[in-house]
């Protein structure tokens, strides 16, 4: 991790200007950095440690039970070779991408932006009630949200009940189209974040710019494409990255709603890593999947930090 942060740091060097302490100040700097020590210890032991162990463990054949549980031996790239030869894993990668694109990049972002813009034009009561409902789904503990979504999409649930009212016999959503169900559930649960980010961003767009465009006869669609979106592009990229990272680690929602099933039809990477490691006791194999997830997360994080260069001074 230190080499990664080093890369990020060098990438933006020269903005703040060098403030290197002189050698005789070394003792004082050391004293001043003592308050950092507890945080460093906690992070090193509980975050950095597992990440490093994860990379190492993914090269061993360790298991939860059996002979391999005692002395795990080095197996090189075997776990990764197995992984890429395993259709379940490749399917899981695909499902994860579908989940990310469907629920985060398209679902939450577009709906969040749409809600934020509609709220600009709506009356205060509607805005308040709808906003509260959207935020409530987001504030609820994840497991409670998962129960509610489960009840909604279940064969005997609310959705099919409503469809029956208009004479449609609904499908058994959780079995027939599990990915669609969990994607919609995650949109339901997560859109509030995007809505809040975009609402804040839109209020910062100067009103006179929008008004003058309106005078010049720009239609609503044109104002959106040529004025609003370019002016909030920084919020859009921030939000895209954050929702993608949050969605990448969604576990509870899918675990409760479908358990990754039926079969492995909704096993995204976090679910698959859990199943391999704890259900089938293949710790090394599960660790390899976890490592790939961490690498994907790390790549996204670095892209995010490089693109947005948050101010750290």
């Amino acid at each position, binding site marked *: 991790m230190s080499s990664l942060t080093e890369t990020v740091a060098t990438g933006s060097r020269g903005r703040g200007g060098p403030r290197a302490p002189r050698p005789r100040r070394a003792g004082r700097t050391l004293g001043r950095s003592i308050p*950092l020590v507890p945080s460093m210890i906690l992070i090193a032991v509980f975050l950095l440690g597992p990440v490093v162990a994860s990379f190492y463990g993914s090269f061993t054949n360790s298991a939860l039970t059996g002979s391999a549980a005692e002395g795990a031996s080095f197996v090189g790239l075997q776990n990764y070779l197995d992984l890429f030869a395993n259709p379940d894993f490749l399917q899981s990668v695909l499902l994860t991408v579908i989940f990310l694109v469907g629920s985060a990049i398209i679902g939450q972002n577009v709906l969040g932006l749409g809600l934020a813009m509609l709220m600009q034009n709506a009356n205060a009561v509607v805005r308040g009630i*709808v906003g509260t409902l959207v935020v409530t789904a987001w504030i609820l*503990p994840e497991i409670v949200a998962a129960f509610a979504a489960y009840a*909604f999409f279940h064969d005997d649930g609310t959705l099919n009940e409503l469809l029956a009212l208009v004479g449609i016999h609904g499908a058994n959503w959780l079995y027939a189209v599990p990915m669609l169900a969990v994607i919609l559930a995650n949109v339901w649960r997560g859109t509030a974040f995007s809505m809040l980010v975009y609402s804040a961003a839109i209020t910062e767009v100067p009103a006179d710019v929008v008004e003058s465009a309106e005078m010049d006869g720009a239609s609503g669609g044109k104002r959106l494409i040529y004025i609003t979106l370019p002016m909030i592009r920084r919020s859009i990229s921030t939000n895209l990255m954050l929702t993608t990272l949050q969605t990448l680690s969604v576990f509870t929602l899918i675990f409760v709603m479908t358990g990754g099933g039926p079969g492995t039809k909704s096993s995204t990477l976090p679910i698959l890593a859990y199943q391999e490691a704890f259900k089938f006791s293949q*710790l090394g194999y599960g660790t390899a999947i976890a490592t790939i997830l961490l690498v994907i997360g790390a790549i996204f*994080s670095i892209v995010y*930090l490089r693109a947005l260069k948050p101010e750290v001074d």
Partner: protein
Amino acid sequence: MGMTSPSGRAMRQVSNGVLIVIGVCFALPLAWLLLASFDPTANLTLKWPGTPTLDNFTAVLTPDLAFLPLFNSLLLSAGCAIITVAVAVLAAYPLSRYKMRINKPYLYGILFGTCLPITAMMVPVYSLFVALNLIDSMWGTVLFMAAASLPMAIWMMKNFMDSVPIVLEEAAWADGASMMATLTRVVVPLMRPGIAVVFIFVFVQAWGNFFVPFVLLLSPEKQPAAVSIFAFFGQYGAVAYGKLAAFSLVYSVPVLALYVFTSRVLGGGSALAGAIKG
């Protein structure tokens, strides 16, 4: 915004209509939760309770079923939030007040840490806990949850601390106060609202966390509400939906209350957004 033209009014009507439709979609799953909890014969269908009662709540609110798990949740979340806030205040102080060579790499490391998917770490964390003999240990779980929430907490805390004027500290330094004395007597009292926001943020996340205690705690008597509610769902879920909904509501109330408190009293909505925006 001035919306007086006819097209503006039409636009407002359309916006209201679309918003109401979306609002209903968002409300339906929540409505089931609410109605089922008061319905002694609840199933998965959304229906008005024939005779609304509090039976589900009284059936669930027993020491074994609800109070012990909720107490465990409180222990885990409060422990995690206290440790996180204490460690984050300490770490934020030098980062906010001194120009040190370590600041930049450290802050970038912190930001990088906020982005890592914690879910992905649970398999290696489990291995680490086996190696350290910390499986089924409340303290181990609290420490891991604190470490996992530290990057975001330090980042938020530093931003709050940056907005506390340095003038008062300079006076304290002139009087010969040490760094720790300045921090605890001058800075911390001045940034109480910020500390409260971070505390609540960490507490709420820990309260809602299912996966971490699910993997790291094994004994039923140590498990927090998030995990026991899931066990309840697995064992009785097929028959006792009303009780499941009632338990879920009881478990959600503290989080909802803290959110309302934060946004109304502390103006935390914008504070949180500010921290997240980076």
